[in-house]
């Protein structure tokens, strides 16, 4: 989408033109959904959160500074909406002190062939608390202090959740590698099948098996 076209759409959205809103929505649907999917457990939840984000966009678009990139503005709205959505549920999320966390073992990530969907599925499998902190820290680049402030949790809890999230993700990557290796027949001794009918009976005459 060109800059001019985007400006026209934004102008239409400021005028609450439904057609412009829909066009903008469709244009940034994939981008917004990609962000929300990282924070959500499934697509329906992600769509719900994303719509909350677009609702904010359409009702407050007059405050948008046209000198700044629209995509970055939209992306931050989606991220914040995602955080707000899950903030209410964080009481049920995992919150554990760092001291209780176990050691992380090394995983070689260079050799795997995991794609976007694989990685997204892994992140979505994380418990909410782990997922939110991991997204904020590892992907969106926030510090533990900022995360603790945003989520109303302790810094130690943020660190612990991140630690646990990484641990679980590594385990998932290891499992995926094992599965891939199995499929590629790597590191497995082949089992030779014998055709019983082709084996001729032999009489050993009690000479012993070593003769």
């Amino acid at each position: 989408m060109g800059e001019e076209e985007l400006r026209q759409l934004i102008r239409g959205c400021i005028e609450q033109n439904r057609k412009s809103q829909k066009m903008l929505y469709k244009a940034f649907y994939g981008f917004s959904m990609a962000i929300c999917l990282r924070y959500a457990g499934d697509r329906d939840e992600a769509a719900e959160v994303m719509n909350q984000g677009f609702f904010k966009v359409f009702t407050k678009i007059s405050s948008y500074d046209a000198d700044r990139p629209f995509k970055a503005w939209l992306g931050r709205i989606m991220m914040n909406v995602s955080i707000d959505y899950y903030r209410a549920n964080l009481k049920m999320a995992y919150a554990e002190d760092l001291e209780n966390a176990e050691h992380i073992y090394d995983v070689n990530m260079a050799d795997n062939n995991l794609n976007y969907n694989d990685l997204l599925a892994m992140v979505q499998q994380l418990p909410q608390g782990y997922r939110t902190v991991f997204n904020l820290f590892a992907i969106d680049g926030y510090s533990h202090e900022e995360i603790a402030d945003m989520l109303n949790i302790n810094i130690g809890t943020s660190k612990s959740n991140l630690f646990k999230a990484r641990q679980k993700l590594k385990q998932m990557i290891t499992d995926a590698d094992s599965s891939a290796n199995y499929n590629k027949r790597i590191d497995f001794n082949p089992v030779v099948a014998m055709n019983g009918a082709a084996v001729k009976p032999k009489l050993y005459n009690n000479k012993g098996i070593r003769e």
Partner: protein
Amino acid sequence: MNKEKDIKNLDQFFKQGLEDPVDKTVFRDADWDALEQMLGGKRTGIVFWLPWLSSAAAILIVAFGWWMLRPQATNHAQKPQQQMAVNRVQKAEQPAVTDKNKQIAAVNESEKNDINKNDINNTAVKPAATGKPITELSVQPKHQTTRPAYIAANTVINKHRVKGAMLPGETVNAEQKGSAGISQAITGQPNPSPDSYRDRDNSRDNEILAAVPLPIAIGTIESEMPGITPNTAGNPDIASINILPETTAGSSAGSDTKAGKTIIKKTGVPYRPQYALSVLASQELNGVGSLQQASGGIDVGLLFSAGLVKKFTISTGLHYSLKPYTLPFSEYHTTYKFKNAPQTVSADCRILDIPINIDYQVYNKSRNKITVGTGLSSYIMMHESYTYDYGSSDVLYGPSYYAVKTQGKYYFSIMNLEASYQRQVSSKFGVSLQPYLKIPLSNIGYSQIKVETFGVAAGLNWNINSLTKPK
């Protein structure tokens, strides 16, 4: 150092992998519909009325089902052997039956030329002379004419009505049409009327081709024979976002801000049902009792589905199925007494299948959706015929073909179990693959058997909301 490097690698790995989605999430009209309602969109057109129409349709279906399944004052279903005995007693007391069966003897080509009119006379009608109960009468082929034969006739060829002859599935003909009724001669009572084998089969016309050389087949026998919108209701709404503090206070979403802290309110997104039409075609296997000796069939159908509740979809429609199957004669039920039992019976059934299913969405990510479901189907027989295989072509012993003329109706008699994988191609269209299993809950068809069906349907789905929602 290595540990820190490894952690950074992990973070970087996920950051790079998730920043650039290869398979972008496809736009879904349902999501825009939900947002449009949040924005205050008006609901107009047919979609506004669809929930009411769906509800009315559901009530009508339930009422119709109740009406069809209500207890009836007529006789309950009985075993064929019992019915044979009862019919003789009841036929003098009951009004004329409406069942009509026509059975045509199979032809023994080798004996065609040996048959003359005398044979016809011999084989046509003798029950009055012998005084035998009419229910003992049976089809006799030409080569068994040394004994009294009370033969079925070929209705197609000569159109002579022969009263009292017994044919496969037949009991006693009570209707007196044309010539003098044999049944009257036998029973000594005028216009006897047999009972039906089954209550729901009262209006059947059946036709049988019996194993009689063509010239013998001379008369007609009348006898009795037997389609989700994410439902956000109850979910918390997000009151404010951190990057827009200056506009939060005036938010039309009803959010509040206290000392910089975000307060989450529940606002609930308006619910919006989703509707879809699907065209399905499938290859299926049909078997009696099990699918070990299954025969292949095909099925085409049109389904309407309504996502009325989050993750739950109700669907109904119409399928046309060709269901051939083969069963051993021991599992074939009929009141007709075969002189020589066939080895196997091959059935050719063409059925209108009206399912009512409910599906639960177990997976929905990106373009893919997986649902599992169950429901009930009603069968309406459009065609039902049976071919009898005696194993040897040297001699023909009995009927070779039998066609049931009237439509048997079996309401909510089949349980459907299905799983469906759907992939969204665009916002309006999707494709689906649906393995399914149909398990009969009651006996179906003239032969009263339970035919299991397993099939895999391929379908094209059309989201009809995209046409009717407000622009």
